[in-house]
Structure formats: structure tokens, C-alpha cells
């Protein structure tokens, strides 16, 4: 039963991806650009969901990992102009290193204490970027000399397939024995340990995987946008939007995070006519979902299907 529902979800998801890959034939470059950002954003949210939804770690600082990946890639390109894939690899690697650093306190402190540690990590990174302006571009931001491609369609396709492959990996991981052990350690670490699972090893793995995808996506996004700034990669507001995307989509579902990310980007765009109030409305809608449908979009979808 469980297997068949997973297969069904994967089939639906694959159909959506295939349909989405035909979008460039029908819609404008502007919309493709929005979706490109939404897809990278979706990867951020999925990586967050793995860490929080499964390993139970209250991570308020997804942007610490993303920012580390993005800035490492951007600075490297700015200084030496190596091939872009090398910059992206370096960014991903730096984010993984950041993930290990972040995992160390997580193995010692729990709940709100860990949440605060992650918040502090973001503030430290932000302070560093602002203070070391000659290297990072400071508050103005960093402009990278290279982009992957200037074609809207190409960028869209890269983002789409990157998102689809990340989703497939993270989703199957979450439904694998490893995912179940993570979930068990998140809910009751002592009991999971008593059952013979190495909680420390699994949590560390979760941090590394989450950091890998966050850093990878962050580095790719830099080479799509052509710039990196605190406001787009590091600021706590960005982290909050990622968390909202994951919670809106449905926690512990991985794929829901992408729905949430697309929804947030689409709503901000649709509400553009009302100007500065748009963010307020998006956040208010998110709050209503959290209060009334704690299961999120994905929870609503799967529940209605089970009912029917």
C-alpha cells in the first residue's frame, strides 16, 4: 500500500516535470525567469525539509548553507575566473563544510537552543559579508563576471532538471530506511539509539546532504542571477521564506516544498499590482495555512485523495 502510494506520487511528479519541460514553447521569457528562481528556491526548501521534517532539527539558518555556497562560488569566479563548474563545485564543497560545522552544536544542544545557534550562524555570516567588503562586495553585493548562459530557455531547463533530480534523490532518501531512522532520531533520539541506530552518524549525514543541495542550488543561482547579495542569499527574511515554502507545501513531504516555493513566487508576482502590501498578504496567507491546515498543500492533496 505504502509502496503503491509512493509510486503514484512519483508518477504524478514525473508527469508534471515532463509537462513543465514543454513550457518554454508557450510562455514568455519573463515567466520562465520567475520559474527558474522558484525551482532553485524549491531545492532550498526541500533541503530544509529533510533537515527539519525528518531529522527534527529546528534550522532557522538555511541561508547560512546557501549563502556559504553562493558566496564561495561567486568570490572564486570574481578572483580567478576558473570554469564555472569548478566554482559551483567549490561552492557546494564549502556549503558541505558549513553543514558539518553547523552539525557540531546540533549534536550537543537541542530544540530552541539549536535554533538559536543557526540564527547566530546566519548573523555571523551576514556580519562577515558586510565587514569584509573588499572580497565579498559588502552591502552593495558581488557581481560575478560569468553566467552559465544568457538564454532564458536554457536557464529554465537547467533549473527544472536540477530541481527534478534533487527532488527524486531527496524524496527516495526520505522514504528509504535512512529516512525512517532520521525520523525516529528526530522524534526520540534516546530510543532510536537504544534500538541500535547510530543517531550521530545519521544526523551528520542529514546535515551533509542538506548542505550539499543548498550549496549546489545557491551556487547555480549565483550564476543565473549574475550577482550575489546579502538580501538575496543570506538575510534572515530569505531563510524565513524558505521555511514558509516548506511549511506551506507540507512538512515531511519533500515534494510539497517545491509547491510551496512556486506558490510564494507566483503569489508575490500576482500581487505585484498592490505594491508593497504584497509581501504582507503572502505572509498572512501563509499564517492562515499554518493555523488552519497544518498539513500544508501536500497534506490537503493526499488527504482528499485518500478520502475519495
Amino acid at each position, binding site marked *: 500500500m505504502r509502496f503503491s502510494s509512493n509510486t503514484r506520487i512519483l508518477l504524478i511528479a514525473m508527469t508534471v516535470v515532463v509537462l513543465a519541460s514543454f513550457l518554454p514553447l508557450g510562455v514568455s521569457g519573463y515567466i520562465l525567469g520567475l520559474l527558474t528562481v522558484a525551482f532553485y528556491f524549491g531545492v532550498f526548501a526541500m533541503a530544509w525539509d529533510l533537515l527539519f521534517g525528518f531529522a527534527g532539527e529546528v534550522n532557522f539558518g538555511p541561508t547560512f548553507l546557501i549563502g556559504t555556497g553562493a558566496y564561495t562560488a561567486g568570490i572564486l569566479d570574481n578572483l580567478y575566473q576558473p570554469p564555472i563548474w569548478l566554482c559551483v563545485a567549490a561552492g557546494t564543497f564549502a556549503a558541505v563544510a558549513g553543514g558539518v560545522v553547523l552539525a557540531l552544536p546540533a549534536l550537543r544542544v537541542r530544540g530552541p537552543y539549536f535554533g538559536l545557534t543557526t540564527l547566530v550562524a546566519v548573523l555571523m555570516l551576514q556580519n562577515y559579508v558586510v565587514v569584509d567588503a573588499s572580497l565579498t562586495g559588502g552591502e552593495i553585493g558581488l557581481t560575478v563576471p560569468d553566467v552559465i548562459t544568457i538564454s532564458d530557455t536554457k536557464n529554465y531547463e537547467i533549473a527544472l532538471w536540477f530541481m527534478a533530480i534533487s527532488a527524486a534523490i531527496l524524496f527516495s532518501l526520505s522514504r528509504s530506511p535512512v529516512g525512517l531512522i532520521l525520523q525516529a532520531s528526530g522524534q526520540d533520539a534516546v530510543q532510536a539509539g537504544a534500538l541500535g541506530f547510530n543517531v550521530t552518524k545519521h544526523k551528520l549525514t542529514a546535515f551533509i546532504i542538506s548542505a550539499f543541495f543548498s550549496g549546489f542550488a545557491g551556487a547555480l543561482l549565483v550564476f543565473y542571477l549574475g550577482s550575489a547579495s546579502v538580501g538575496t542569499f543570506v538575510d534572515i527574511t530569505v531563510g524565513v521564506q524558505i*521555511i514558509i515554502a516548506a511549511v506551506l507545501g507540507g512538512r515531511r513531504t519533500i515534494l510539497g516544498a517545491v509547491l510551496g516555493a512556486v506558490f510564494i513566487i507566483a503569489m508575490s508576482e500576482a500581487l505585484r499590482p498592490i505594491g508593497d502590501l504584497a509581501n504582507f498578504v503572502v505572509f498572512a496567507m501563509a499564517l492562515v495555512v499554518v493555523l488552519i491546515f497544518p*498539513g500544508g498543500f501536500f497534506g490537503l492533496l493526499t488527504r482528499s485523495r485518500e478520502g475519495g
Partner: protein
Amino acid sequence: MGTCCVSVVFWQILVDGFAISSLYALGAMGFALIFGVSGVLNLSHGALMVAAVVAAWAAGNDLHAGPYTGAMIGVAVGFATTLLTYFIIVSPLQRTRKIREDEKEIFILTATLLWGIMIQELIGYLYTNNAKTVAPIVEGVMSIVGVRTPKNELFTAVVCWLVIGGLWLLVNRTRAGKAVLAASMNPRGVTLLGIELSQIYIAVWAIYGLLVGVAGVLLGMFLGVSSYSVGPLTASAFSIVVLGGLGSVSGALIAAYVVGYLETITAYLISPAYRTIPALLLLIVVMYIRPRGLLGRR
């Protein structure tokens, strides 16, 4: 000349740091109280304070209210917004059956975070993101141990300590206060004694609302805030409370002075740009060595 300037800077740090620290203490106290009694970490804390400041500022600016009336309006708005937070966000989440008990904490964190950002966005929309300073109640400058100090700074410290003293008396000397204290130690025991827990929560949130209002208005007179201060204000209350030990009000008091002085020393001796960094580092060190904070119970 050397010794004279060193001593002036020393006294300046001492006086300035005291006022800032008192304000931090007052701001973090309510946050610690709420966590101690009901286990809620309110991430809209900074937004509530900014709401109080902006209300006081708008009363002076748009309605041409005097400083006293403005301050009153600020405190009232801070109070009302805090109670609103409890009734429409925190209380429904505490009561709902749709969310598993062990997941409620994270839902309250997420919901209050969202609520705080909504307040921030609304303030930015209605009154722009510019910094706002509230007209002080006391004006002028005086000399304390040779340091020219705005009278407002002294006023801030005095009011903070009066309110903190009042809170101490309330909790330790009155029946209602003792019930609150008991609830923070053992909620089930309190219910068994026939005291309605929900009423204690409302009382505590009302006290928190007053603290937020007063601390907010004082902050507005002393330093001024903008809608961008929401995150940093929450973060500083959070770190002070964690440093002192979650749930410990006296720990928060001590931690507020540690953080306040550390920041002032850094700002004077190194550079204002690095102001917050040593306190953040200290926080990380404390969490590694002693995760329950200075006076934490757990």
C-alpha cells in the same frame, strides 16, 4: 592627557552601557517570563516592540500628541498587539488537536515568526522603513561623574529599574504572582490546586504586553528604531534569554548587562561596525560549554 581620556572613556562606557543594558534587561524580561511560564518562544517579540515605538512616534508626528500622551499611546498599542498575538496565534495553536503535542513548539515558532514579519511589512507599508525616534519625555544634558549624559539616558535606566522592581514585587509578594511562579515550576500542580491555567497565561501575556510597550517606547526615545530592527531585536532578546538560561528571569537580567556592556565596550574601543559580534561569539561559547545558560534550570 592619556590618562584623562582613558578615564573619560571608561566612565562613558560605564554610564552608556548601564542605560543600554537596563533597556535590554527590560526588553528580554517579558520574553523570559513567557517562556518560563508557558514554554512559548515568541519570535514576534521585536515586531511587538517596534509596533509600540511606531505608535508613539505616529501619535507625536501625525496627531501632534505631547510626549506623555505619545508614550501612553505607544505602551497601549504594544500591550494590545501583544494580547492580540496571544489570542489569535498562540492560544489557538496551544488548543488545537490537529497538531501533535510534540510538534506544537515548532508551529508556534513558525506562526509567531510569520506574524512578526507581517507586522514589520505593515509598518513598512504604512509608515515607510525609515528610522523613527520618539520625542523624549525628559530633555537636556547633565553631567554624571564627569560624563555629559543626556537626561533621557538616566530616565531610561530609572524607569527600567522601577518596572523590573515592580515585576519582582508582583511575582514574589502577591498571591497572583505566586500562582504565576508556581505555574512556571509545575503547571499540573497548579491546576490541581484549582487555579485555571489559561487565566494565568492571560495574566502573564498581559504583563508581557506592558513590558513590551514600556521597553519599546523607551527604546524609541533612546535609540530609535526602523522596521528593519524587528529581526535584530528578537535575536537580541533571544540570545540574552539563552545566555541567562531559558526560563530564568534573574539569569536574563545578568545576561542583559553582560551583552549590553560587551556591545558598548566593542563600539567604543574597536568599532561600532563590530558591535554585535563579541556577544554572538560569547553566546556560541556558552552554548558549547554550558548549554543551559548561566542560571538555567535544565
